[in-house]
């Protein structure tokens, strides 16, 4: 049996760190120092961080240690180092959202709600993480700040738009990060970097104090290397928030205690149709392994999924562009070339297209919700392929050469379109590039997806080891 890793090491889980800090067997400062050292040592290679908040991290860690010494409760995530996609407000830092334009903004005057909540739980913020500009991408190849590099193979992409969030966890820099997901931006990097990633139900976690992209579709959520860690972070972050209209009435449904209930008795089906097209051998194998482990023998059809993806695309273009319209008018040249023309085009879409897309969304949502009468969980690929080399323009799917970047989110887009909760599970295939599977639940049933994830992890079907080359730090 392998000894548990030291709490200050790269492979320690958040759960283990918090237990050790709470017990006083390791100091939060030692854990924070070790994380900051790893960040400094690795960031040139993977380009995950855009800002490192070293002084803040050490001060927060010292405060946790004082609480422990004084017999006060330091919180369920005591001493856990974390970081956030750089669209989350961090007090004293301009919120870059992956852009050059936002460098000119004044520093944030308050933390984002989820940053506040994780800190209140004792976690220690280490900095802000690289993303595609304004979240409009699936690869985190950022023209201003460079690409985020996949710790499993640094010539390859991390996925996006939360690429830095995934890279930081996959490289063992910190055990917990936050990202956002509008059309796939938590699920795609989770898949390509081999992590557990949770995109909760739309409106479950507050977007308060985050720089937006598409109000209709934006979600926020955590990345981690274990389901228990994900659940602990998710529980600490839940609760209503008047700062985010979509989360103003968010219900709290704690999950950490129910993970052990397992997946037995859950009705699980594999999505067919659209979700079986443009799927590589790797992706099909991964879905098959999860299906077998969960006893999923049947399939389910999400009707008109291709249309759903098209509608999500149009809504994204229109809302994203409208948000940026003043800058598009005055300084289009300051945008990343990868986002600029898409935003410009989005500003010009006929209202008829966008309005119809929102009406179709209601129709599609009603039909998909009906399916959950007969199934508890639906499985689908998280990405069509494993991580492609940085700079790849085209990939081949179903024998057809297609643009690589927009097609990364082929199977994620129809799901986030209607705000269903999704856990991405990294399928354990030793010696192969990582790839994940979407475990999709009905609205507000994150608990079922997480129970299935925990069962897959316990069975060794899903695993998120720190990438080779980073694990010994």
């Amino acid at each position, binding site marked *: 049996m392998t000894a548990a890793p030291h709490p200050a090491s790269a492979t320690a889980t958040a759960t283990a760190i918090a237990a050790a800090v709470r017990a006083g067997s390791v100091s939060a400062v030692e854990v924070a120092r070790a994380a900051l050292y790893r960040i400094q040592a690795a960031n040139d290679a993977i380009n995950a961080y855009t800002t490192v908040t070293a002084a803040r991290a050490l001060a927060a860690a010292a405060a946790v240690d004082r609480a422990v010494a004084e017999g006060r409760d330091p919180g369920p995530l005591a001493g856990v180092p974390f970081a956030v996609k750089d669209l989350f407000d961090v007090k004293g830092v301009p919120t870059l959202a992956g852009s050059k334009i936002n460098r000119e903004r004044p520093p944030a005057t308050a933390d984002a709600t989820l940053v506040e909540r994780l800190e209140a739980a004792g976690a220690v913020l280490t900095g802000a993480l690289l993303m595609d500009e304004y979240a409009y991408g699936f690869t985190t190849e950022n023209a201003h700040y460079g690409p985020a590099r996949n710790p499993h193979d640094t010539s390859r992409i991390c996925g996006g738009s939360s690429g830095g969030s995934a890279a930081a966890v996959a490289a063992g820099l910190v055990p917990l990060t936050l990202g956002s997901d509008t059309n796939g931006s938590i699920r795609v990097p989770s898949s390509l970097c081999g992590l557990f990633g949770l995109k909760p139900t739309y409106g479950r976690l507050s977007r308060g104090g985050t720089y937006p992209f598409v109000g*209709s579709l934006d979600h926020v959520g955590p990345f981690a290397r274990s389901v228990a860690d994900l659940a602990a972070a998710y529980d600490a972050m839940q609760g209503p928030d008047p700062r985010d209209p979509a989360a103003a009435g968010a219900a709290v449904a704690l999950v950490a205690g129910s993970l052990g209930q397992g997946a037995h008795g859950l009705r699980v089906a594999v999505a067919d149709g659209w979700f079986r097209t443009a799927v590589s051998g790797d992706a099909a194998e991964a879905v098959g392994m999860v299906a077998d482990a969960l006893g999923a023998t049947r399939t389910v059809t999400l009707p*008109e999924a*291709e*249309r759903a993806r*098209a*509608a999500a*695309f*149009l809504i994204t*273009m229109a809302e994203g562009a409208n948000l940026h*319209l003043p800058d*598009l*008018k005055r300084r*289009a*040249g300051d945008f990343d070339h990868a986002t*600029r*023309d*898409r935003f*410009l*085009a*989005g*500003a*010009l*879409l*006929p209202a*008829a*297209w966008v*309005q*119809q*897309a*929102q*009406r*179709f*969304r*209601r*129709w599609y*949502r009603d039909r998909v919700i009906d399916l959950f009468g007969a199934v508890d969980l639906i499985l689908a690929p998280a990405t069509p392929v494993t991580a492609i080399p940085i700079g790849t323009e085209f990939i081949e799917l179903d024998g057809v050469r297609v643009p690589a970047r927009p097609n990364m989110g082929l199977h994620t887009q129809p799901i986030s379109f*209607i705000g269903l909760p999704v856990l991405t599970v990294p399928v354990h295939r030793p010696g192969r590039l990582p790839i994940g599977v979407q475990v999709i639940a009905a609205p507000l049933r994150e608990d079922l997806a997480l129970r299935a994830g925990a069962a897959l992890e316990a069975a060794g079907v899903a695993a998120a080891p720190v990438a080779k080359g980073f694990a010994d730090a």
Partner: protein
Amino acid sequence: MTDDTPPGMAAYMDSAAALIGLPVAAAHRAGVLTNLERAAALAALVMEFPLGEQDDAAPVYTP
């Protein structure tokens, strides 16, 4: 601009951009057109789907 560009697309781009006061620099025209074409192909999928008067827009406003 490719041979496949719908004939009216460039004219639409210019008119719509002028209408909302959005300059499209010469260097960006081709990219914007490509993206409008992509959007048009996706919009065709959405627009051809029959919806009835019961099919309200998904977002519901709460005062």
